[in-house]
């Protein structure tokens, strides 16, 4: 039973690693430029602090996932990893939420504040940022599945044991 458990955990972590790496790379490489009235308008992820936060958090989480993949399965670190998994899932949620807020303003604009949508001018950047956000969302889902599975695996002895 432990072998199947560790295999499933490994598989989920691999998928999470892939998703977070994908989100980081696509967002960092998103680039588009346009010229309006002889003014060069370049769109990169570093123009917005929340996209920077998204890239940083996804980098940290992918490094963490890579580290956990390398830990042997019988060591005692797994309880610490359970707590760190929770923390990483929360960081991912926070970064995705912040990036979504800014991306929403970029796509739909905010007429009350006078902020015009920029997706019309830099469509390539918009598409790439959307893809990165989708990948980030998949990473969050996988992390929550992983968390639920780890908690269930860690708590099963509770419900089976009787005094």
């Amino acid at each position, binding site marked *: 039973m432990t072998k199947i458990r560790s295999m499933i955990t490994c598989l989920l972590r691999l998928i999470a690693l892939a998703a977070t790496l994908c989100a980081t790379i696509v967002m960092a490489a998103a680039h588009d430029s346009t010229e309006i009235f002889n003014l060069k308008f370049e769109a990169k992820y570093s123009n917005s602090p929340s996209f920077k936060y998204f890239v940083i958090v996804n980098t940290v989480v992918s490094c963490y996932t890579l580290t956990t993949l390398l830990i042997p399965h019988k060591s005692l670190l797994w309880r610490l990893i359970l707590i760190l998994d929770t923390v990483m899932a929360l960081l991912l949620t926070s970064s995705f939420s912040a990036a979504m807020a800014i991306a929403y303003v970029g796509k739909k604009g905010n007429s009350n504040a006078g902020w015009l949508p920029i997706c019309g001018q830099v469509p390539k950047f918009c598409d790439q940022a959307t893809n990165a956000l989708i990948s980030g969302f998949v990473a969050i889902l996988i992390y929550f599945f992983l968390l639920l599975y780890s908690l269930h*695996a860690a*708590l099963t002895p509770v419900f089976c044991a009787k005094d």
Partner: protein
Amino acid sequence: MKDLPSTAYHLTCSTVFMAQEGDGNHEKPGAASGYGSLGPRLISKRRDMILILLRFMALLATTSGTIVMALNRETKTFVVGTIGTTPIKATLTAKFQHTPANIFFVVANGWATLHNMLMLVIETYGRDLDFKGLRCVAIASLDTMIFALVAAGASSAAFIAEIAKNGNSHAAWNKICDKFETFCHHGGAAIIASFVGLALLSAISVISNFKLQKQKTTVGSVDAM
């Protein structure tokens, strides 16, 4: 003691601690009180006292965050032009509903307020409530979920507020805080209150998860996955 074997392993978090500390002046685990008596129990354990205090402060923080942002509204009249000698005035209102991130912020903090209230009620009046041994799991998982929700709401509102304060020259989004100062100050205060609540919720979540781990080690065997 007919019902003792069936309730013997329904150890709640508080009774586990009591059994461990060897305290004699509380009801024994699995006693006949069960679900019947729901009066307020004596809170004499320092750990439980700290947890209740933390939950109360988190309740205050999230409530103030919700209310201050929900009542955030400012109306200002601007002079947009002149025709001859008469100035043309336009009245603009800044409401929190104008930004979806703020709506999410209010909703998330509202849910956190309700959650904190429910947890306070359970900790003070419902110490014997044990849902077939799932009390610790339910409390720990709910705490983590609400922590995630408040983290998402607070971070999205914080980044939108950052754009409102500093503008974004690359996207030609102008700052609005120089015109609507009170709105920005109130919004900032709400976000700070929510972050304070977030820090407290993180401590509460960690403590609840530790209680869960402790329950696991006393009742069952440790499986190192």
